[in-house]
């Protein structure tokens, strides 16, 4: 197991370089960021020259990139053009996104797995059919449309929740965006849980458990869930990373000052250090999550062994 984890961690190194390189190149290709700073205002050539020097903008691309990487390895993630360190900006923004992402994640787990279990209990029943139809609708509606409609109906028309901003704090301000962010994954988790439970229900060990006279509740918990949850856990693990990436749209609609909104603004301002730094952190979280999931497998299913 230890060797497996180390091998996986080593595999992250090329991915780290790949992601930073691609993102740095994309930002480099946007052109000279200094030109667009303070557009319309009086230009100060000396200050512009200073910024170009300070942010290595006079160097060729590959030199800029290497200097950036060197900075990261010495703990310097760079700063915005206004001089604010990227890590400080990240520390300001990530609580909002983390709260949003984790709320969405909990909704996804509790409702997705819970409703999946209920649907699988009575296959073909009204709840099963309803949830299958409902999830299909959610899957086919784009997130931003869902966001608008939810914001309009629950935020504006019914006034149950604040339609935008985080002034009311957790949970009131976060519930609508979290549901919108979780919607798509919730639908997949529900369908996957249900499908796997039904698939497992035909297994011999289930018949044995029933024949022994074990109560239904116990059979579900000890036998069928434990055997069905592996693909669900895989999906959830990959999804937690995706949730933070998908927060760009949700944060935009509900006007939440999180990482997604900052990323969108920073791309527009060509703040290379902010964009590459944020994306790198998101990707590393994503990779660590998928490693954690693979380690969880061995716990869920003792048949799985890693060398």
């Amino acid at each position, binding site marked *: 197991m230890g060797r497996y984890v180390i091998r996986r961690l080593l*595999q992250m190194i*090329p*991915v780290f370089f*790949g*992601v930073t390189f*691609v*993102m740095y190149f*994309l*930002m480099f*290709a*946007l*052109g000279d960021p200094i030109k667009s700073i303070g557009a319309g205002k009086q230009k100060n050539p000396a200050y512009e020259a200073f910024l170009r020097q300070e942010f290595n903008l006079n160097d060729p691309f590959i030199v800029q990139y290497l200097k950036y990487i060197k900075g990261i390895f010495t703990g310097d993630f760079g700063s915005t053009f206004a001089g604010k360190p990227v890590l400080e900006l990240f520390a300001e923004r990530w609580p909002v996104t983390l709260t949003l992402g984790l709320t969405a994640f909990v909704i996804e787990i509790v409702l997705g797995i819970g409703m999946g279990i209920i649907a699988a209990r009575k*296959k*073909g029943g009204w709840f099963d059919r309803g949830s*299958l139809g409902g999830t*299909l*609708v959610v*899957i*086919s*509606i*784009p*997130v*931003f*449309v869902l966001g*608008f409609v939810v914001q*309009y109906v629950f935020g*504006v028309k019914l006034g149950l929740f604040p339609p935008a901003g985080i002034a009311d704090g957790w949970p009131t301000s976060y519930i609508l965006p979290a549901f919108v962010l979780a919607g798509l994954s919730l639908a997949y988790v529900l*369908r996957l849980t249900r*499908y796997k439970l*039904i698939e497992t229900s035909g297994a011999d060990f289930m018949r044995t458990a029933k024949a022994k006279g074990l109560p239904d509740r116990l059979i579900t918990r000890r036998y069928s869930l434990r055997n069905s949850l592996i693909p669900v856990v895989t999906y959830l693990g990959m999804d937690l*990373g*995706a949730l*933070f*990436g*998908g927060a*760009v*749209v949700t944060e*935009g609609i509900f006007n939440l000052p999180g990482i997604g909104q900052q*990323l*969108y603004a920073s*791309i*527009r301002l060509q703040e290379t250090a902010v*964009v590459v730094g944020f*994306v790198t952190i*998101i*990707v590393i979280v*994503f*990779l660590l999550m998928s490693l954690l999931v693979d380690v969880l497998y061995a716990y869920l299913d003792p048949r799985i062994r890693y060398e």
Partner: protein
Amino acid sequence: MSDNTPQAYDLLVQDADSERLESPESGAKPRTLKGDAWYDLRHNGIFWISAFLLVFVAAMVLFPGLMANADRTSSLSGGCDLSNSLLPPSSEHWFGTDQLGCDVYSLAIYGARPSVSVGVIAAVVTTIIGAVIGLVAGFYGGAVDSLLSRIVDVFFGLPLIVVGIAALSTISLPGIWGVTLILCVLGWVSAARMVRGQTLEAKAQDYTTAARALGASNTRIMARHILPNAVGPSIVLAVIALGGFIAAEATFSFLGLGIRPPQFSWGTMISESQPVFFQAPWTLLFPAAFLSVTVLAFILLGDAVSEALDPKLRR
């Protein structure tokens, strides 16, 4: 998703597995995989519903003029009257009008072509790229596999929306091509992973060893013995991804980075309705409904085809 399996499986299920190993084009009686799949599809109501919807979508894409009048989609041709701005649905304007007084119904019909084209092109291209990379990685293994798998990891990790925003701010291709290019470059990863998995599985089978023992070349083994295993799952993945690409185009257009005016798609219509949504919800709801129903039809078709092609899913 195998719940709506057709009832007619009992005859087929016994020898479905052995037939799967034969090459699909052996047209010998009684049944081939293709024959099985078609038999299965014909008895699947979901297949017919999605097929009917997709025929309708195809008609909108190919012959929008049959259903709507192009003049009513643009102020340039004088078809829109600003004094008609934001009218609610009526017999004159079935789906109402937008800010510029253009007919939302005509816009929705003509918006189909760019939206669906992006999805179709991206699905075809990503499937081909994914198949080639997955096949090569799985078949040759070793260093080639390690290298390609790391590249796949990089692309898998990159958040689509963020990279898309950055890349689309850089490149400015006309019409649908910018967003199509981005989706092609970023979208092939899951196809590559799937084909690689199928290849690894098929490579270990006896028939592959047999072919090698008979002296078949690598190319022949890949083309005749390994790739056919991946065709079914690839089609399914491509159809479902197609729906996703259409939605992704709408997302980028919504962010102002996809298709730009004067061209329009369902995505740009939804985007432009944003400021007037509260007073004129029809400007958002109709294009959103067209978009969602199209995506849904592709997902349902993918479900039905995957069921038909996979004998293990028949119960």
